């Protein structure tokens, strides 16, 4: 049962009181079930940050249900160039977000449910949460064969991954969040979760690719709405609280003071790309399909910025001075297509008017841009 959010007072007192008072106890005894009214990844991740930072979870765990418009979400210490196809994502308008929990890369769309279990540190128990989800699934479809693995994935029929897990542990609280694939566009999923970038050397945490399947393929009663209701009901039963799903607006500053700033931080280039662990790219390409001249590129990237860059044309198809000029001009810049475009356009204006050289130069710049 969804309750449109009229419990502003509830939240204000939950926020302002670090220790329970009589009023607080009356409002939310034993836990809360929240559902986001937003499908914006940054706003929803901001809700997680806000609850984690501000709410007193002692004897009051929280379940947060949310879904997002098409987005790729990478783990805290991952490398987006290693994990996904940024070019396809740009073409299709699929967002990229970096979450604060660890773990691997996932694709979200409205066919995927995200579940976040907030507790105090001592009550942090991911397996218990997954067992709750399995009970919820079996409550809808008793024949469903879903098991949790040691890696805390949920497998359908022993082989298809329908859920992945990640978590974060803070000062006093912790959260465990996981996905649940109901009816995701798996064509988009498989195209964006494959990195085309070659020659990356990085110690970022890698993802473990898995065979996935939508629950709806097994049983068409397993829609997102049905499953969210079932998980909420199971959570309410387990924590002995009322089965009321409170709908929240992640942009409401009166309920969540400071939340919009958190959402903004999550959208900054510095967070999404700049937090990528130091890495290097060592790759080569032909200038064009017709040309056999191989260009070697070596780039060192730290905090998302180019620390070192070398571009080589071993067969001297391009003058050394031009290549040096290009590589040194990259240093200090963001490893980013749009910033590189600006730089390249400025450099092209200084390029010699020789047509052939100009064409090669243009091709080179485009190729270098495509690795970003």
């Amino acid at each position, binding site marked *: 049962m969804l309750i449109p959010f009229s419990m502003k007072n509830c939240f204000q007192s939950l926020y302002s009181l670090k220790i329970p008072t009589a009023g607080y106890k009356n409002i939310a005894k034993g836990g809360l079930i929240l559902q986001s009214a937003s499908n914006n990844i940054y706003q929803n991740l901001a809700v997680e940050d806000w609850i984690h930072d501000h709410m007193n979870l002692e004897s009051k765990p929280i379940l947060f249900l949310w879904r997002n418009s098409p987005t790729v979400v990478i783990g805290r210490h991952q490398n987006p160039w290693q994990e996904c196809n940024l070019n396809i994502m740009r073409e299709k308008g699929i967002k990229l977000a970096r979450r604060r929990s660890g773990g691997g890369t996932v694709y979200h769309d409205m066919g995927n449910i995200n579940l976040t279990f907030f507790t105090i540190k001592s009550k942090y128990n991911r397996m218990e949460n997954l067992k709750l989800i399995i009970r919820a699934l079996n409550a809808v479809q008793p024949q469903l064969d879903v098991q949790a693995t040691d890696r805390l994935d949920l497998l359908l029929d022993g082989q298809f991954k329908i859920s992945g897990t990640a978590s*974060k542990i803070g000062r006093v609280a912790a959260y465990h969040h996981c996905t649940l694939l109901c009816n995701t566009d798996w064509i988009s999923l498989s195209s964006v979760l494959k990195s085309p970038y070659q020659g990356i050397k990085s110690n970022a945490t890698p993802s473990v690719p898995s065979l996935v399947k939508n629950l709806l393929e097994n049983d068409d009663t397993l829609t997102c709405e049905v499953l969210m209701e079932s998980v909420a009901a199971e959570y309410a039963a387990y924590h002995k609280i009322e089965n009321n799903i409170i709908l929240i607006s992640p942009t409401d500053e009166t309920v969540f003071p400071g939340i919009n700033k958190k959402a903004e931080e999550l959208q900054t280039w510095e967070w999404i790309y700049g937090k990528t662990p130091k890495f290097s790219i060592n790759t080569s390409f032909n200038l064009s399909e017709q040309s056999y001249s191989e260009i070697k590129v070596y780039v060192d990237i730290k905090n998302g910025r180019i620390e070192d860059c070398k571009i080589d044309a071993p067969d001297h198809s391009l003058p050394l001075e031009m290549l040096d000029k290009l590589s040194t001009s990259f240093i200090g810049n963001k490893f980013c297509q749009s910033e590189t475009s600006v730089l390249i356009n400025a450099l092209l204006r200084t390029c010699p008017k020789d047509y052939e050289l100009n064409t090669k130069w243009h091709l080179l710049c485009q190729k270098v841009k495509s690795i970003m």
Partner: protein
Amino acid sequence: MALRATRSVRVAASSLWAAAAAEAPRPLVSFPGAPAHLRARRGPGSLPFPAAAAARGLCISAQRPAIRKFTDKHEWISTENGIGTVGISNFAQEALGDVVYCSLPEVGTKLNKQDEFGALESVKAASELYSPLTGEVTEINVALAEDPGLVNKSCYEDGWLIKMTLSNPSELDELMSEDAYERYIKSIED
């Protein structure tokens, strides 16, 4: 369990430090208990006090010997010549599980006591790191980039995280001694 074996070492060491080691008061904030299956165990190569420091204590020296102090968030800091070395305790590395990534700050970062300065990612979770004291980061353990597991294998020695200056050395008095920290762990395990 293995704490018993090291008690004799601790007793010997503590007599050396009797004058120097002022026990820190128990923290005022109470913390939730840890799962019962997590026991504080000595990892291989992790001594209660560095052997070199024990030797130094026997010599007449005006220099303050390196003493390890602990926070209630399971970080340790040991100071020498005004520079503190920070790491996580054996209890913490056991609770974390295998560390797969260490996110550490840049050299020069200024930290206030209890500021978040990085994170350790393990199979269990991404866990925040909190600065035990106020100061400036002077060095980070670059070995952890290639071998984050050092935090598990050698949390008190090779698995150190950062070194920092001490802007306010009296903050050390607010931290727990090793004995106090071990009592603290026992209290949260129960």
